[in-house]
Protein backbone atom coordinates (compact mmCIF):
# COMPACT_ATOMS: atom_id res chain seq x y z
CA UNK A 1 0.00 0.00 0.00
CA UNK A 2 2.97 2.31 0.39
CA UNK A 3 3.53 2.60 -3.33
CA UNK A 4 1.72 5.51 -4.89
CA UNK A 5 -1.23 4.80 -7.06
CA UNK A 6 -0.04 6.01 -10.47
CA UNK A 7 -3.47 6.90 -11.75
CA UNK A 8 -4.34 9.11 -8.80
CA UNK A 9 -0.89 10.60 -8.81
CA UNK A 10 -1.48 11.74 -12.34
CA UNK A 11 -4.91 13.01 -11.45
CA UNK A 12 -3.79 14.98 -8.42
CA UNK A 13 -1.06 16.86 -10.23
CA UNK A 14 -1.52 20.55 -10.63
CA UNK A 15 -1.73 22.25 -13.90
CA UNK A 16 -0.09 25.39 -15.00
CA UNK A 17 -2.16 28.45 -15.60
CA UNK A 18 -1.11 30.45 -18.64
CA UNK A 19 -1.37 33.97 -17.36
CA UNK A 20 0.77 37.05 -17.71
CA UNK A 21 0.22 38.13 -14.13
CA UNK A 22 2.66 36.82 -11.57
CA UNK A 23 0.79 34.16 -9.65
CA UNK A 24 2.27 32.35 -6.69
CA UNK A 25 1.56 28.74 -5.89
CA UNK A 26 0.83 28.04 -2.25
CA UNK A 27 2.97 25.23 -0.88
CA UNK A 28 0.78 22.15 -0.73
CA UNK A 29 0.80 18.64 0.66
CA UNK A 30 -1.53 16.05 -0.85
CA UNK A 31 -2.26 13.05 1.29
CA UNK A 32 -4.42 10.05 0.51
CA UNK A 33 -5.97 7.99 3.26
CA UNK A 34 -8.26 5.02 3.02
CA UNK A 35 -11.37 7.21 3.06
CA UNK A 36 -10.34 10.52 1.58
CA UNK A 37 -7.86 12.82 -0.13
CA UNK A 38 -6.51 15.74 1.88
CA UNK A 39 -5.09 18.88 0.36
CA UNK A 40 -3.18 21.12 2.77
CA UNK A 41 -2.10 24.52 1.46
CA UNK A 42 -0.24 27.32 3.18
CA UNK A 43 -1.83 30.75 3.21
CA UNK A 44 -0.03 32.58 6.03
CA UNK A 45 -1.24 36.05 6.91
CA UNK A 46 -4.51 35.61 5.04
CA UNK A 47 -7.94 35.92 6.66
CA UNK A 48 -10.35 33.00 6.42
CA UNK A 49 -12.91 34.94 4.39
CA UNK A 50 -10.29 35.88 1.79
CA UNK A 51 -9.68 32.27 0.79
CA UNK A 52 -11.73 31.07 -2.19
CA UNK A 53 -12.41 27.41 -2.92
CA UNK A 54 -14.25 26.36 -6.07
CA UNK A 55 -15.07 23.06 -7.67
CA UNK A 56 -15.68 23.00 -11.40
CA UNK A 57 -16.32 19.61 -12.95
CA UNK A 58 -13.47 17.57 -11.51
CA UNK A 59 -11.22 20.52 -10.74
CA UNK A 60 -10.59 22.08 -7.38
CA UNK A 61 -9.42 25.67 -7.45
CA UNK A 62 -8.06 27.42 -4.40
CA UNK A 63 -6.99 31.04 -4.36
CA UNK A 64 -6.35 34.00 -2.06
CA UNK A 65 -4.95 37.46 -2.40
CA UNK A 66 -2.22 38.19 0.09
CA UNK A 67 -1.56 41.81 0.86
CA UNK A 68 1.53 43.04 2.67
CA UNK A 69 0.67 44.01 6.24
CA UNK A 70 3.11 46.90 6.21
CA UNK A 71 4.13 49.65 3.86
CA UNK A 72 7.61 49.95 2.53
CA UNK A 73 8.74 53.51 2.89
CA UNK A 74 12.10 54.98 1.93
CA UNK A 75 13.59 51.54 1.48
CA UNK A 76 13.70 51.06 5.21
CA UNK A 77 13.75 47.33 5.28
CA UNK A 78 16.38 44.74 6.04
CA UNK A 79 14.89 41.58 4.61
CA UNK A 80 11.96 40.82 2.33
CA UNK A 81 11.69 37.07 1.89
CA UNK A 82 7.96 36.60 1.67
CA UNK A 83 5.79 37.01 -1.44
CA UNK A 84 2.63 39.06 -1.77
CA UNK A 85 -0.02 38.98 -4.44
CA UNK A 86 -2.31 36.33 -5.85
CA UNK A 87 -1.80 32.77 -4.64
CA UNK A 88 -3.61 30.25 -6.78
CA UNK A 89 -3.57 26.57 -7.53
CA UNK A 90 -5.73 24.07 -9.38
CA UNK A 91 -5.96 20.35 -8.71
CA UNK A 92 -7.52 17.70 -10.90
CA UNK A 93 -9.48 15.44 -8.62
CA UNK A 94 -9.44 11.65 -9.05
CA UNK A 95 -12.52 9.94 -10.42
CA UNK A 96 -13.49 8.39 -7.13
CA UNK A 97 -13.81 11.80 -5.39
CA UNK A 98 -17.16 12.50 -3.84
CA UNK A 99 -17.53 16.12 -4.87
CA UNK A 100 -20.77 16.58 -2.95
CA UNK A 101 -19.08 16.02 0.40
CA UNK A 102 -15.95 18.15 0.09
CA UNK A 103 -15.22 20.06 3.30
CA UNK A 104 -12.68 22.73 4.14
CA UNK A 105 -11.21 24.29 7.25
CA UNK A 106 -8.76 27.13 7.79
CA UNK A 107 -6.61 27.48 10.85
CA UNK A 108 -3.34 29.28 11.56
CA UNK A 109 -2.87 30.14 7.90
CA UNK A 110 -3.28 26.54 6.77
CA UNK A 111 -6.13 25.48 4.48
CA UNK A 112 -7.26 21.87 4.72
CA UNK A 113 -9.59 20.56 2.02
CA UNK A 114 -10.95 17.05 2.57
CA UNK A 115 -12.32 15.18 -0.42
CA UNK A 116 -14.03 11.94 0.60
CA UNK A 117 -13.78 8.92 -1.68
CA UNK A 118 -16.95 7.41 -3.08
CA UNK A 119 -17.99 4.47 -0.95
CA UNK A 120 -18.11 1.84 -3.67
CA UNK A 121 -14.46 2.10 -4.60
CA UNK A 122 -13.09 1.71 -1.10
CA UNK A 123 -10.84 -1.35 -0.89
CA UNK A 124 -12.83 -4.37 0.24
CA UNK A 125 -11.46 -7.63 1.53
CA UNK A 126 -12.90 -10.73 -0.12
CA UNK A 127 -12.86 -13.94 1.78
CA UNK A 128 -12.26 -17.25 0.08
CA UNK A 129 -14.86 -19.86 0.91
Amino acid sequence: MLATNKSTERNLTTHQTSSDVRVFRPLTDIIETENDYQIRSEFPGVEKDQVNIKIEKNQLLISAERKANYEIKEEKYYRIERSFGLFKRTFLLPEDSNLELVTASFENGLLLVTIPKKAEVKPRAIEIN
Partner: protein
Amino acid sequence: MSIIRWKTGQDLLNFEREFKRLFDGVIPFGKTPNNDDSTYENSVWSPLTDIVEENNQYVLHMDLPGIEKKDIKISFSNGTLSISGERQLENETKEKNYHRIERSYGKFFRSFDLPSTIKSEEIKADFKNGQLIISVPKAEEVKPKEIPISVN
Protein backbone atom coordinates in the same frame (compact mmCIF):
# COMPACT_ATOMS: atom_id res chain seq x y z
CA MET B 1 38.24 8.48 15.76
CA SER B 2 34.66 7.97 16.73
CA ILE B 3 31.83 7.10 14.42
CA ILE B 4 29.33 9.88 13.90
CA ARG B 5 25.92 9.29 12.44
CA TRP B 6 25.66 10.95 9.06
CA LYS B 7 22.49 12.89 8.53
CA THR B 8 21.28 13.10 4.96
CA GLY B 9 21.61 16.61 3.63
CA GLN B 10 23.09 17.93 6.84
CA ASP B 11 26.45 18.76 5.26
CA LEU B 12 24.80 20.80 2.58
CA LEU B 13 22.58 22.55 5.09
CA ASN B 14 25.56 23.36 7.30
CA PHE B 15 27.49 24.68 4.34
CA GLU B 16 24.63 26.96 3.42
CA ARG B 17 24.41 28.20 6.99
CA GLU B 18 28.12 28.87 7.27
CA PHE B 19 28.09 30.69 3.96
CA LYS B 20 25.21 32.88 5.06
CA ARG B 21 26.92 33.50 8.36
CA LEU B 22 29.93 35.00 6.62
CA PHE B 23 27.75 37.74 5.24
CA ASP B 24 25.17 37.99 7.95
CA GLY B 25 27.80 38.97 10.47
CA VAL B 26 28.44 42.30 8.80
CA ILE B 27 24.88 43.49 8.25
CA PRO B 28 22.28 44.50 10.82
CA PHE B 29 19.70 41.83 11.62
CA GLY B 30 22.09 39.15 10.46
CA LYS B 31 21.74 35.65 11.74
CA THR B 32 24.21 34.74 14.42
CA PRO B 33 23.75 31.11 15.28
CA ASN B 34 25.76 29.96 18.22
CA ASN B 35 27.62 26.77 17.49
CA ASP B 36 26.88 25.35 20.91
CA ASP B 37 23.18 25.84 20.40
CA SER B 38 21.58 22.45 19.92
CA THR B 39 18.33 24.04 18.79
CA TYR B 40 20.18 25.50 15.86
CA GLU B 41 22.08 22.33 15.06
CA ASN B 42 18.96 20.17 15.05
CA SER B 43 16.71 22.48 13.11
CA VAL B 44 15.80 21.53 9.58
CA TRP B 45 14.03 24.57 8.20
CA SER B 46 13.95 28.35 8.52
CA PRO B 47 10.72 30.34 8.30
CA LEU B 48 10.59 33.18 5.76
CA THR B 49 10.97 36.58 7.41
CA ASP B 50 10.55 40.22 6.47
CA ILE B 51 12.22 42.88 8.62
CA VAL B 52 11.00 46.43 8.30
CA GLU B 53 12.07 49.60 10.04
CA GLU B 54 9.42 52.05 11.13
CA ASN B 55 9.88 55.41 12.84
CA ASN B 56 9.52 54.08 16.36
CA GLN B 57 10.22 50.39 15.99
CA TYR B 58 11.62 47.51 13.99
CA VAL B 59 9.07 44.89 12.98
CA LEU B 60 9.80 41.26 12.11
CA HIS B 61 7.13 39.42 10.10
CA MET B 62 7.53 35.67 9.98
CA ASP B 63 5.46 33.04 8.15
CA LEU B 64 4.61 30.03 10.31
CA PRO B 65 1.50 28.52 8.74
CA GLY B 66 -0.06 25.47 10.33
CA ILE B 67 1.71 25.95 13.63
CA GLU B 68 0.01 26.41 16.98
CA LYS B 69 0.84 29.47 19.03
CA LYS B 70 1.97 27.30 21.93
CA ASP B 71 4.56 25.56 19.73
CA ILE B 72 6.50 28.75 19.03
CA LYS B 73 9.32 29.77 21.35
CA ILE B 74 10.72 33.29 21.26
CA SER B 75 13.71 34.33 23.34
CA PHE B 76 16.00 37.32 23.60
CA SER B 77 19.44 37.15 25.13
CA ASN B 78 22.74 38.91 24.54
CA GLY B 79 21.28 41.04 21.79
CA THR B 80 20.03 38.06 19.82
CA LEU B 81 16.39 37.34 19.15
CA SER B 82 15.69 33.64 18.55
CA ILE B 83 12.54 31.99 17.26
CA SER B 84 12.24 28.22 17.36
CA GLY B 85 9.72 25.42 17.41
CA GLU B 86 8.59 22.30 15.64
CA ARG B 87 6.03 21.26 13.05
CA GLN B 88 5.06 17.61 13.28
CA LEU B 89 4.20 15.68 10.14
CA GLU B 90 1.67 13.25 11.59
CA ASN B 91 0.72 11.85 14.91
CA GLU B 92 -1.40 9.05 13.54
CA THR B 93 0.19 5.94 12.16
CA LYS B 94 -2.65 5.16 9.78
CA GLU B 95 -1.83 3.93 6.31
CA LYS B 96 -1.35 6.93 4.09
CA ASN B 97 -0.20 7.73 0.62
CA TYR B 98 1.72 10.95 0.22
CA HIS B 99 1.16 12.30 -3.27
CA ARG B 100 2.96 15.56 -2.70
CA ILE B 101 4.90 16.97 0.25
CA GLU B 102 6.07 20.51 -0.39
CA ARG B 103 5.81 21.97 3.08
CA SER B 104 8.66 21.69 5.57
CA TYR B 105 8.34 19.61 8.70
CA GLY B 106 10.47 19.20 11.78
CA LYS B 107 12.28 21.68 13.95
CA PHE B 108 12.70 25.23 12.78
CA PHE B 109 15.04 27.90 14.04
CA ARG B 110 15.97 31.45 13.19
CA SER B 111 17.85 34.11 15.05
CA PHE B 112 18.64 37.74 14.42
CA ASP B 113 21.14 40.16 15.90
CA LEU B 114 19.19 43.19 17.04
CA PRO B 115 20.68 46.68 17.08
CA SER B 116 21.79 47.79 20.54
CA THR B 117 19.58 50.87 20.42
CA ILE B 118 16.35 49.09 21.31
CA LYS B 119 14.13 48.69 24.34
CA SER B 120 14.57 44.97 24.84
CA GLU B 121 12.10 44.81 27.72
CA GLU B 122 9.34 46.10 25.45
CA ILE B 123 9.62 43.52 22.65
CA LYS B 124 6.14 42.27 21.80
CA ALA B 125 4.93 39.34 19.72
CA ASP B 126 1.59 38.63 18.11
CA PHE B 127 0.53 35.49 16.24
CA LYS B 128 -2.42 35.40 13.88
CA ASN B 129 -3.32 33.35 10.80
CA GLY B 130 0.07 31.65 10.77
CA GLN B 131 1.93 34.93 10.79
CA LEU B 132 4.19 35.96 13.65
CA ILE B 133 4.76 39.67 14.14
CA ILE B 134 7.46 40.79 16.57
CA SER B 135 7.75 44.49 17.32
CA VAL B 136 11.00 45.81 18.70
CA PRO B 137 10.70 49.41 19.93
CA LYS B 138 13.63 51.73 19.32
CA ALA B 139 15.36 53.47 22.16
CA GLU B 140 14.50 57.16 22.50
CA GLU B 141 17.85 58.47 21.29
CA VAL B 142 17.61 56.93 17.81
CA LYS B 143 14.05 57.96 17.02
CA PRO B 144 14.01 60.55 14.25
CA LYS B 145 13.29 63.97 15.67
CA GLU B 146 11.75 66.83 13.86
CA ILE B 147 13.21 70.21 14.69
CA PRO B 148 10.98 73.01 13.63
CA ILE B 149 12.71 75.98 12.11
CA SER B 150 10.95 79.24 12.29
CA VAL B 151 11.14 81.36 9.20
CA ASN B 152 11.21 85.05 9.66
